[in-house]
Structures are given as C-alpha cells and as structure tokens.
C-alpha cells in the first residue's frame, strides 16, 4: 500500500483529534462535575462516597450486580446446552434457534415491557416482588449478543468429533456438555458473560417501567436532589462496563490468531 501524502496525514491527525475530543469531553466533564463539591466547599469526592454511604443507592447497586450475576447464570444454563445440543443432535433446528435468539434485536425492549405485565404478575406470584426477578427479562435481552459469542466459540471447535470420542468412551450427555465441550468454548462463554454484565448494569427500560430499584433507576431518582452523585454513579458504571467490554475485545482479538495458526 502506498504511504498517504503529508497533507492527508495532517488532515487525518486533525480529524482524529476532533473525534477524540468530542468523545472524551462528556466523560471528562462527568469527572469534573462529580468532584466539584456543593456550594462553596472545594473539590472533593463526597459525591463518590455517597454511592456507598447512601443506603438506597447501595442496595440498588447490589441489586444490579446480583442481577448481572443471575442473568449470566441463567443465560449459560439455557443457551449453552441448547446450542451444543442443536449442533450435535438436531442441526435442522439451528436456523430456528438462531432466528429466535436474534429476535430481541428486532423487538424493542419497550415493546416487550408493554406486553409483559401479565407474565410478571405470575412471576411476582411465584418468586415474590424482588428486583432479582428481572433476571428473566434480562436473559431475553442479552440473548442475541450471548448467542453470537457462543456461536463463534462453537464454530472454532469440532463439536461432533469431540462428542463422538467422549461418547464412545462411555461418557453420558451431561458429561459431554459440561466436561468436554464447555471447557473448549470458555472464551466464547466468557465473552457472552461480559457483554451480558455490561448490558444488565445499564438496563433502564424494564426496571423503571416495572418499578424495580436497580442502579440506573436509583441514579435517576437521586439525580433530582443530588446531580453530582448521579453523575458519579454513572461514571463509575461506565468505567466498569468499559473495562468489561475492552476485555471482551481483547479476548476476541486474541482468539483469531489461534484459529488461523498465524499472527499478523
């Protein structure tokens, strides 16, 4: 490839800087805003301390973290065995499963919320009125992203041969799934888990309209009286989510050379 001209390189540098400033400015302003302090007091971390000290907020943050954990568990329990099973025993269903998994991309979360009232009346009846019941709705929400990650993991290995080998040595189906295939698709499952956590920590539509106090809902509530704390909480969640998602891109970036056998 030819080296770009000097003029283009200068233009590119300027443009990339403009983009960088545009994307960084709101984030930096959150840091400034959240440490500004009330009234005349100087710069301090009071708004950040409130994240732990405010009881409602603390409970909401814990609820969101638990929700992320349970959503990942439910997603893995539902999706991984199903996807392995489809590959091994009923490949004819793979298009149907793929279609169903990607469906939540086309049906806005808001639409599901509008129609889910009856279902949640039953969920509340069976499991009580805890925010953790949102796990079910969130498992649907993360499905398309989780499906793609796990599918990429499964595509990278020869599931059929592995399963045949294990079965001919006398392994049961549970053993095949849990002890043979699962360890081989760990990076795919891990990607799925990361993106699920990221989505759950930021989810607002379901929680606010079904009246459950998760972190984003609590931050919105507190923003009316204490904007600095709301901004601090948002920045904290952005940092956590960014670390997860950057870790994810690192994971998938590292997987490619293994498959190809060569590094660029």
């Amino acid at each position: 490839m030819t080296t770009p001209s000097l003029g283009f390189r200068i233009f590119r540098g300027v443009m990339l800087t403009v983009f960088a400033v545009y994307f960084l400015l709101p984030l930096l302003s959150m840091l400034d805003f959240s440490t500004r302090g009330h009234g005349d007091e100087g710069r301090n971390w009071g708004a950040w301390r409130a994240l732990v000290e405010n009881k409602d907020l603390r409970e909401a943050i814990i609820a969101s973290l638990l929700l992320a954990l349970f959503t990942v568990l439910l997603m893995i329990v539902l999706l991984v065995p199903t996807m392995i099973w489809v590959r091994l025993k009923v490949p004819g269903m793979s298009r149907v499963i793929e279609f169903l998994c990607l469906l939540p991309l086309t049906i806005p979360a808001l639409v599901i919320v509008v129609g889910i009232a009856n279902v949640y009346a039953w969920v509340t009846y069976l499991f009580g009125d805890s925010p953790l019941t949102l796990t079910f709705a969130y498992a649907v929400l993360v499905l398309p992203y989780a499906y793609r990650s796990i599918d990429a993991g499964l595509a990278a290995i020869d599931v059929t041969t592995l399963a045949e080998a294990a079965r001919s040595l006398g392994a049961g189906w549970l053993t095949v799934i849990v002890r043979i295939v699962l360890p081989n698709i760990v990076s795919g499952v891990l990607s799925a888990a990361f993106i699920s956590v990221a989505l759950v920590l930021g989810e607002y539509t379901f929680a606010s309209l079904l009246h459950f106090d998760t972190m984003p809902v609590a931050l919105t509530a507190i923003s009316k009286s204490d904007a600095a704390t709301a901004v601090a909480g948002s920045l904290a969640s952005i940092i956590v989510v960014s670390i997860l998602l950057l870790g994810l891109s690192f994971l998938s970036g590292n997987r490619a050379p293994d498959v190809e056998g060569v590094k660029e």
Partner: protein
Amino acid sequence: MSVSDLATPAPVAGTPPAIGAGRRTSLGSYLALLPFLGFLLVFLIVPTVTVIVGAFRGEDGGFTLGNVRALTSDAALNALWKSILLSGSTAVIGAVLGAVLSYLILSLGPRSLLRRATLSVCGVLAQFGGVTLAFAFISLLAINGVLTQALDSWIGLDIYGSGWLFGLNGLIVVYIYFQIPLMVIVFTPALEGLRPQWREAAVNLGASSSQYWRQVGFPLLTPAFLGSMLLLFANAFAAYATAAVLVSQGNPITPLFIRSALTSEILLGQANLGFALALQMIIVVAIVMALYALLLRRTARWMR
C-alpha cells in the same frame, strides 16, 4: 440414544432420518430443546403477542379498531413524526461522520495500534447509551454543566439557551454520540472489504482517484452504507432510556408517549393505547430491519 446415532454423518438436507428407533430418538432430541423454547415463549413471544392482540382489543375485551384509530390523533402523529425526525437525522449524521471516521481509521494501516484501540473504544461507546449517557451530557451542557460554565466565563457565551438539551434538539445531539461508533462498527467491515486490487485495476485502466471512487468505490459501498444507516435508524427509534431521563415533561417522541400511556392513571383506556403504540413501533422497526437484511445480502455478494 446410542453411539451409532453419532456415527451417522450430520444429516444433509433431504437425507431420510435413520431407521426405526432413530425416529424415536430424534423426537427425544427435540424434547431437549423444550426448556429453552418454553422460556422464550413465556418471556418473548407471549409479551409480543399480547401487544399485537391488545392493540385490537377494547376495554370490554371485544375486538375494536379504536386503539389503532387513536394512533392518528394529533398527539400520536406528532410523536411519531418527531421520532422519525430524531431517528432519521441522527442516522444520517451518524452514518456520514461514522463512515468518515472508519475511513480515517482504516487508512492507518492494518498494523496500527491506534486503529485497534479506536475500534475497541467504538465497541464500548456503541453500547454506551441509556441513563449514563444522559447524565454525561447533563454534566457537560446543562445549566451547571462544565462546558456551559466554561464558555460563559471565558467569552460570555450562553450555550444553555432555554434548555434545548431537554427537548428534541438535545436528543439529536446526545443520540449522535452513540450513533457514530455504531456506524464505525457495522460499516468498517464493508470498507475493509474493498480490495486494493480493484483500485489497482482501475488505475491501470487509466482511472483517476476520483473516478475510481465515483465509479467503483461508492457504488460498491452504497448498499452497505444505506443498510448501516437503516440499522442506526432502528437503533435510535427503539431507544428509550436516554430520552426518558433527559425529557421529563411532555412526550416529544413515541417511546415517551408509550411511557405516559403506561404510567397514566388519569385517563382510562390508556393501556390499550400503549398496546397500539407498541404495535406501531414493532411495524416501523420490522420494516426497517427487513430492508436492512435485504441490503446486507447485496453487500454480502462481494464481501468475503
């Protein structure tokens, strides 16, 4: 289920299933999918069907077109128009700027660290919507915002105005923040798929750089570009959280109109209006996504 089942090769389309016992096994195999399918039925299909049926059901439970007719009220039409305006404008602006950014990133060359870093950051920012994004812009542009105060004390410029951030204009500015990175994510593969050989071939035939772009590059990229733009449109149209936090009064866009239909306890029959509005949303997004899939297939023809 036995080892011999596995020994048979994966069924090719048209191959009859294994004899006798095999058929019973395959029925059992389908049963193993039941937990997953049952879960989706309860938490995805039932709510969606509830919306579709509810849109045509009156207060008394009977069939009615009243809810759908309510969609043509001035308020509902106005919200739909504003929604389309918001999604359309942010899709166009996001697509153009995103395409420029992905061209700049790709021109850095495949080994560039900056290129990998920018793509990773775009992956993060494309997911960065909702409550947190609203607060980011409030901390930047609201009346006490960092930029508002800085510009006011430096040059006496008032960018807060009369609170435009909390209306439709504010939504446009905020949505663009996640639309550009999403465009970079979905458009970069297509841009990357333009083979350098095609350019060399064009140059060998005597084409100038602008001729190459006008007659080869842009026509090839058009379906991918339009498809990405549609995806951005659907993305903005379905977004709710950012707008819900930013706009606390009035219902400028359809998602907020749905919110007030859901939470209103003053007006009777609002729940059914909510169903009708949600159905409208399904239809718009479904049309857009169908067109997207169509354009994606055209792009796939030359992208390997």
